């Protein structure tokens, strides 16, 4: 028993590293109240170490802590994404203007961030419903606070309020759903559930009910229509760095959890592996359900984004739409789909963070997040504007940017699976998305700057970091073999 625990601990270094980072930050925070960077760098270091541990884990494929959590390629892929996102977010936070006013609290900021990271890393690994709920809550609670971290700002406070109410209710519903699922199957982990369902699945009604209730929670985290309503307001209110991490990291984690939960629990294990195409348990057509949600997400997300003037809000809707695109990969019930989701997420990380980053740079200098206010910036901040354009074009999915590759593989998988109507919707909505993305570029470039305005000076560091995000976005557009291989080798989940 104890050696089992010890062995498990040996497979658990990344999480441990995060927890230790948390503790170090707490301690350090006591001594370094005055200046605001130490804790940030500590957290950065912690993340790097965590990253190293994650990479060292690669190739592992087992389940630890009494089948509570799996350490498998799938989880590792997502952990890599999460750690990357975390590292970028630290850079964001170090440069963020909004956080400057909260120097004295910056320590707590990073503590909460590390808590969030831990929660997300557990989410992508967990195979146990209780742990799933726990990780979920850990992530949520820390992000509630982070959203409201700039508490003096009304919008921020409101955002955190909305977020927590919405989140509490969703997680409550999800918990209720979990209780039903556990009750009907009598198992608390996904393998058990799957086994029980494969054995006999006579209860579609109650199962669908519980699945839907759980989806309320998961959908809330991933901001999928129709559980997305919080996203725009929260993104708008939150500090940009937090909005970014919500849009990228917690969406990624939620999708990882969703994929694992559905594929492990509700896949009929018989029709597996030969073709890499699965089939659902008799009577529970959750993939149809997800297809509907995906379609809704694409349509509503893209259409509503047309109307937004606040860049964060626009990006919020775009991220809702992207969640829709991503879900398509899960709908088609094939490893190909999963792989394309992973490719998409990998590329999405860079391009979306990039967009947020440029938005942050502008808001740092101009104190505005309104797209209308961007007019003429192309002449005052050429590099940043060009970068912004590239990121947005990539989000639209035009070659030769990474976004195109992401969409290519996703659409390809869907076409191959024969869900033509879905991919048709995806195509049309992509065209629509063009408008709000290109509108930013248009405001940047098509207008002479009002009056005689000086060019804006940006720090060298920011420019370098911009390239760190820009180069992958472009490079992945023309050379993406590594990502393909990475994703291909990472689709393997423990117990499948």
């Amino acid at each position, binding site marked *: 028993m104890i050696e089992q625990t010890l062995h*498990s601990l040996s497979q658990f270094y990344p999480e441990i590293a995060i927890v230790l980072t948390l503790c170090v930050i707490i301690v350090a925070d006591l001594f370094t109240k005055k200046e605001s960077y130490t804790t940030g760098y500590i957290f950065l270091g912690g993340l790097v170490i965590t990253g190293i541990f994650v990479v060292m884990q690669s190739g592992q494929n087992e389940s630890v802590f009494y089948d509570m959590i799996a350490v498998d390629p799938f989880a590792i892929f997502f952990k890599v994404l999460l750690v990357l996102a975390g590292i970028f977010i630290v850079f964001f936070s170090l440069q963020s203007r909004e956080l400057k006013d909260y120097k004295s609290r910056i320590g707590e900021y990073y503590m909460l961030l590390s*808590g969030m990271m831990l929660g997300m890393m557990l989410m992508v690994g967990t195979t146990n419903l209780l742990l799933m709920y726990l990780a979920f809550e850990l992530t949520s609670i820390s992000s509630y606070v982070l959203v409201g971290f700039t508490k003096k700002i009304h919008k921020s406070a409101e955002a955190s309020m909305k977020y927590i109410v919405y989140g509490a209710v969703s997680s409550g519903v999800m918990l209720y759903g979990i209780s039903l699922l556990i009750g009907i199957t009598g198992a608390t982990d996904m393998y058990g559930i799957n086994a029980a369902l494969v054995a006999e699945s006579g209860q579609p009604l109650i199962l669908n*009910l519980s699945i839907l209730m759980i989806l309320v929670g998961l959908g809330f985290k991933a901001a999928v229509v129709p559980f997305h309503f919080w996203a725009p307001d929260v993104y708008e209110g939150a500090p940009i760095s937090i909005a970014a991490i919500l849009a990228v990291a917690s969406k990624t984690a939620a999708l990882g959890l969703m994929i694992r939960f559905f594929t492990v629990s509700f896949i009929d294990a018989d029709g597996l592996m030969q073709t890499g195409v699965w089939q659902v348990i008799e009577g529970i057509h959750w993939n149809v359900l997800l297809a509907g949600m995906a379609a809704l997400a694409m349509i509503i997300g893209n259409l509503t984004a047309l109307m937004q003037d606040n860049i964060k809000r626009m990006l919020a809707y775009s991220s809702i739409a992207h969640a829709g695109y991503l879900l398509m990969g899960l709908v088609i019930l094939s490893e190909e789909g999963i792989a394309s989701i992973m490719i998409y997420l990998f590329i999405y990380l860079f391009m979306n963070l990039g967009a947020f980053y440029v938005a942050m740079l502008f808001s740092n200098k101009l104190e505005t997040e309104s797209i209308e206010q961007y007019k003429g910036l192309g002449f005052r901040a050429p590099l940043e504007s060009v970068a912004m354009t590239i990121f947005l074009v990539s989000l639209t999915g035009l070659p030769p940017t990474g976004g195109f590759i992401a969409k290519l593989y996703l659409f390809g998988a869907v076409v191959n699976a024969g869900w033509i109507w879905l991919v048709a919707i995806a195509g049309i909505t992509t065209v629509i998305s063009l408008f709000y993305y290109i509108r930013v570029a248009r405001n940047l470039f098509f207008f002479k700057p009002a009056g005689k305005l000086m060019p804006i000076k940006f720090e060298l560091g920011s420019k370098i970091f911009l390239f760190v995000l820009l180069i992958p976005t472009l490079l992945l557009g023309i050379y993406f073999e590594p990502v393909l291989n990475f994703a291909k080798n990472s689709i393997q989940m423990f117990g499948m």
Partner: protein
Amino acid sequence: MELTTILFYLFSLVTIAAAATMVFSKNIVHSAFALMFTLVGVAALYVLLYADFLAATQLLVYVGGILILILFGVMLTTQGHSFSFKTITVNLVPASILSIAAAGLLIFAFTTTDWGISVPVEHSETVHSLGMMLMGDYVLPFIIAGVLLLIAIIGAVVMATKLSTTINNQSN
């Protein structure tokens, strides 16, 4: 008609009635106290389900902790004028329709479902085995819960306490 049956109905009645009062009462303080009765009733139900430890925890944590917290919240967020204890309701109609629908749906589902009923071994008391499990199968959740509480405390502190340094207080 055995005692347990009677008790069950009694307690569930108390619970539900209290909950209903909590929901429909106009005065938030009343609601708070109604909530207390609900929680106690739930604890009693736990006892009926042979979950003594859970019942105890329920009383301690909820009644002793959360409820007090909530009352503090009530006090801190109202300037003592009694009228402001009043809580107005919004979108009543959709809310009631939806919740009734939910209830109906759930109850229908429960009654039509065939739960694999099996009466397992009766634990005289659960504390010991729970403790064992906590150190065994559930050690990871146990640790994580610890972290969670830590994070929660930090978060609460961040949110609740005033900022020490003076900052330009933009109110947009």
